[in-house]
């Protein structure tokens, strides 16, 4: 791959229930994420259709760009804390960032 190594970070994408947004955001702060981006979403998964028609069926999609350790910490925490009881999925990819010092 042509990406300069010191600019490589992890991009964590989490899709989950809107109901736990504030709790999640607190967790991210605590676990060392320097930032995050949230968009409203709907979707379908093992827990059925979540069509965002009203509060109880709304999803959010959270993106966090961070280093590998933070990504590991976050995904471990989310898996332990939320995976069993909440509609939630998560995936990780590698991205190149512009100003590595920001993340």
């Amino acid at each position, binding site marked *: 791959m042509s990406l300069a190594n010191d600019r490589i970070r992890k991009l964590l994408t989490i899709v989950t*229930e809107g*109901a*736990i947004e504030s*709790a999640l955001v607190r967790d991210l702060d605590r676990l060392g994420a320097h930032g995050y981006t949230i968009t*409203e979403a709907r979707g379908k998964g093992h*827990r*059925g*259709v979540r*069509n*965002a*028609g*009203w*509060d*109880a*069926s*709304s999803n959010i999609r959270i993106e966090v760009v961070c280093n590998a350790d933070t990504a590991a910490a976050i995904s471990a925490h989310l898996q332990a804390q*939320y995976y*069993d*009881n*909440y509609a939630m999925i998560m995936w990780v990819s590698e991205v190149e960032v512009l100003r590595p010092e920001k993340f």
Partner: protein
Amino acid sequence: MNPIDPIILFFLLGLIAGLARAELRLPAAIYDFVSILLLLAIGLKGGIELAKQPFGDLLPQILAVLVMGFALPLVAYPVLRHLGRFKRADAASIAAHYGSVSVGTYAVAVAYFGTREIFFEAHMPLLLVVLEVPAILVGIVLARGMSRETRWGAVMHEVFLGKGIVLLLGGLLIGWIAGPEGVVSIKPLFFDLFKGILAIFLLEMGLITAAQIGSLRQYGLFLLGFGVVMPVFSAVIGAVLGWALGLSMGGTAVLATLAASASYIAVPAAMRVSVPEANPTLSLTASLGITFPFNVLVGVPLYHVMAERVHAFLGA
């Protein structure tokens, strides 16, 4: 005979459109807007009335209704746990939904008695607010015990700072402070449009209910039965309590409706955070897929009759 209330027809329109999979979707922002307006309007109406009477007179009623709010989920829980064979968390969560109240159902009752020009005590919104909370606390304790682990701070935040309570209580206080004359200037939005806004709300509720009915098959007959029997039982309790508290016939019927209604805003949000292992589909299927349409279509007129009987039999 009274004509069919158009707002009920809006609910049916949403329900049928949803079941027929019509390309009809109300934007989430509009659902939010409409429910904010309803919550504020109900609060304001209650507040204006509070401005007219000494608060002390209402204290006995508030306390009695609080007790009912604690009692109803305690009745529902064993039924769900043992007859329904639900897991502990699920039984506790459903019990909390049925112990609390539905603002949408209340609004339908207000419209129903308004159309018929039947008097009911104007401080009902206060009892509505009072009834929202205790069942949530009971549900959490039923699910977790009085465990040290429960982060009561977070629970209290979820319960008292949820959208529903903040807007109802906020409206109540604003109405109380501003009083009947102060509120005149905002009447066109909050009061004149009330039933139109309620119609839009019920259209969306019909669509949501239709989506919920899909999961009904999965959970079988017990839930269906519970979703019909529990509200009728609660309505009887509410009606007797209303009579005992000296409420008018209309007020008795409204209290019966409040008791019969099952929450789908405040309680689901609180349970999601405080009892996450409870399956939300279960409780929403019951409260939205069964009890809400039952109350809207059949329940309110039934509780009306119920209140008339209670007042007739037990004496005014």
